[in-house]
């Protein structure tokens, strides 16, 4: 019994009842389209979440937090040293499982001005060059700080592109791009020279939109421009938040921050040495626990055994993101699975009707020497051919469905159809076809040849 012939006969059978077959297939078409569409949406969400995750510095970034001393050490609270450069240097020297250590001395609520304009800076801090790796920054213009800047506490700064937009105007407003290298700005009244500027950080969606806007800008410069605030897009606004935070940052050398902004809180002529933040990156994410233990051991020495610090990993966040993705996948999968199941029931129904119509034919085939297995295979193959044809149509439909979904839903994360989703949908609907064909096929295979031949 060769399979090609079986498939051919199956196709003929389907072709002989075109309308009925198409109606039957429709269930599978919808099932596959919803399965692929769902997974595309989830994939889009996942991409959006991953992007913002990376924008926030990636999974291997760990924040060394200040925390109140544990109650058992309450009597030592006044000796708690806080996070200082001692910790940073000690970690660098003695914790080889830590890849990068980035100390930060923040300037809280800074007033950043250029001429009449003020920038709403989200993060203004004195930093080391490690911050580039820590927050995955990329310098587009100028340079970052060098040892001389650090040593001399030079009044230089590197700005995010958002700060430039607010102080000098954005390319969208001006029609050209300002590169403010060498310009003077003031931070809390102190004059600083801009020596570098970061690239613009944005989600893939935003990048696409900008490209489209750029392309259409030449043709349509009419007044139909949007008035009022732009609708915020993106998954929970979170991705947007992460990117804005990066774009609205302003960095100065660590020493500069210490000398120029911490002198007011001095003791015995030495400015307050406490850092506002220490962030570390571990060398190997799979050994996160061990790496953090090593860092903890080092820090316990520099802190004289007082545990006034803690590590905050992005692990929790990754976990919650993964959970959300899993949930979305599960619920989408269940819905799509149910519609495929309904499609399968439709196929089973039509196969039962089909074998009832063909009882005499089946009897003839048996008289001609068809074994039960041959009849069984024939019916199952027919059912699978139906479902696979439906699945193929469903794949085509899913592309359209995803376009429509992307159009009507303002998720910042455009749905992405993956080949895995397509493959899964194909395999699943073929499986549905097999299962739907089983019962009719067994029924047909078990028919007694005489009764089948005599059937009117």
């Amino acid at each position: 019994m060769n399979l090609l012939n079986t498939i051919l006969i199956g196709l003929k059978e389907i072709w002989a009842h075109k309308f009925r077959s198409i109606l039957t297939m429709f269930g599978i078409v919808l099932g596959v389209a919803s399965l692929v569409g769902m997974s595309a949406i989830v994939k889009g969400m996942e991409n959006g979440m991953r992007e913002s995750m990376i924008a926030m510095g990636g999974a291997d970034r760990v924040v060394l937090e200040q925390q109140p001393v544990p109650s058992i050490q309450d009597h030592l609270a006044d000796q708690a040293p806080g996070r200082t450069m001692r910790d940073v240097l000690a970690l660098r020297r003695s914790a080889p499982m830590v890849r990068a250590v980035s100390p930060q001395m923040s300037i809280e609520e800074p007033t950043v001005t250029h001429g009449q304009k003020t920038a709403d800076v989200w993060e203004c801090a004195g930093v080391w060059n490690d911050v580039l790796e820590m927050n995955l920054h990329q310098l587009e213009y100028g340079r970052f700080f060098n040892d001389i800047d650090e040593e001399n506490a030079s009044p230089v700064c590197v700005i995010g592109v958002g700060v430039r937009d607010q102080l000098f105007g954005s390319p969208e407003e001006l029609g050209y791009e300002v590169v403010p290298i060498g310009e003077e700005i003031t931070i809390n009244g102190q004059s600083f020279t801009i020596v570098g500027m970061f690239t613009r950080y944005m989600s893939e969606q935003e990048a696409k939109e900008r490209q489209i806007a750029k392309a259409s800008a030449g043709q349509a410069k009419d007044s139909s421009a949007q008035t009022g605030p732009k609708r915020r897009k993106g998954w929970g606004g979170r991705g947007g938040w992460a990117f804005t935070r990066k774009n609205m940052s302003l960095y100065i050398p660590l020493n500069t921050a210490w000398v120029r902004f911490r002198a007011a809180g001095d003791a015995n002529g030495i400015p307050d040495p406490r850092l506002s933040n220490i962030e570390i990156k571990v060398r190997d994410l799979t050994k996160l626990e061990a790496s953090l233990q090593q860092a903890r051991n080092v820090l316990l020495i520099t802190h004289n055994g007082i545990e006034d610090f803690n590590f905050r990993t992005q692990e929790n966040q990754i976990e919650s993101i993964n959970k959300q993705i899993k949930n979305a996948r599960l619920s989408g999968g269940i819905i799509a699975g149910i519609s495929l199941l309904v499609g399968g029931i439709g196929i089973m129904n039509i196969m039962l009707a089909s074998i009832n119509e063909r009882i005499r034919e089946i009897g003839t085939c048996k008289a001609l020497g068809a074994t039960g297995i041959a009849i069984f295979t024939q019916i199952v193959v027919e059912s699978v051919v139906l479902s696979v044809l439906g699945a193929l149509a469903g794949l085509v439909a899913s592309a359209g469905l995803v376009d429509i979904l992307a159009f009507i839903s303002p998720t910042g994360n455009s749905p992405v159809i993956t080949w895995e989703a397509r493959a899964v949908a194909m395999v699943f609907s073929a499986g549905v076809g097999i299962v739907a064909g089983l019962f009719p096929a067994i029924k047909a295979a078990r028919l007694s040849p005489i009764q089948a031949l005599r059937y009117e």
Partner: protein
Amino acid sequence: MALLELRNVSKIYHLGGEEIRALDGVSLDIDGGEFISIIGPSGSGKSTLMHILGCLDSPSKGEVRLDGMDISKASTAQLARVRNRTIGFVFQFFNLLPKLNVTQNVELPMIYAGIGGRERRERAHKALELVELSHRTKSRPNQLSGGQQQRVAIARALVNDPKIILADEPTGNLDTHTGELILALFRHLAAQGRTVILVTHNPEIAAVTPRRIEIRNGKVAERVDERLAGLDRPNAVAVH
């Protein structure tokens, strides 16, 4: 040893507690190359006998030997194989598959026999030449006349080179003239040394064959119907 040996074969049906003996202790031998008719009125049990001879059914009692193989103890898969290789069926209503064309219909038994595509086409063509239908290979059954359809069915029955051709009222659905042509074809096949068994209720058709077995009330009748005697002219076509 005969090609087909039936020893004391009974087929018993149970209908609502009542026992119905469709066949009751039938014994007969059919030799290879015989041209034979089984005749009997409807309800006589001739259909049941045909089903058992055609390996479509197993007897309740008794022994059936086909070519030395005990059919009464064979599995359904073995029976399917025997039907495929050893027996060629021709039905009253032709039983061609409506969605397949002539060639595909003729190829069907070879598909079940697992014969490769090229050989299938060659043998189907030869069989169709034999029944003089090689010009209608692409036609659908519903585009053919009754006689043509029955010839396709005969080609299909022949294509696996079976030892036995089992025809159930092969002319029952045809006009007299076409029926004669079909009977002539069967005689031709018998002359070639094939065993041909015609099952019919019509004595005129039974008259064509040299040997006749009459079934009455599930038993082989002792005496052949006298109406048949007068029509018994070997090598002659049935009179209308």
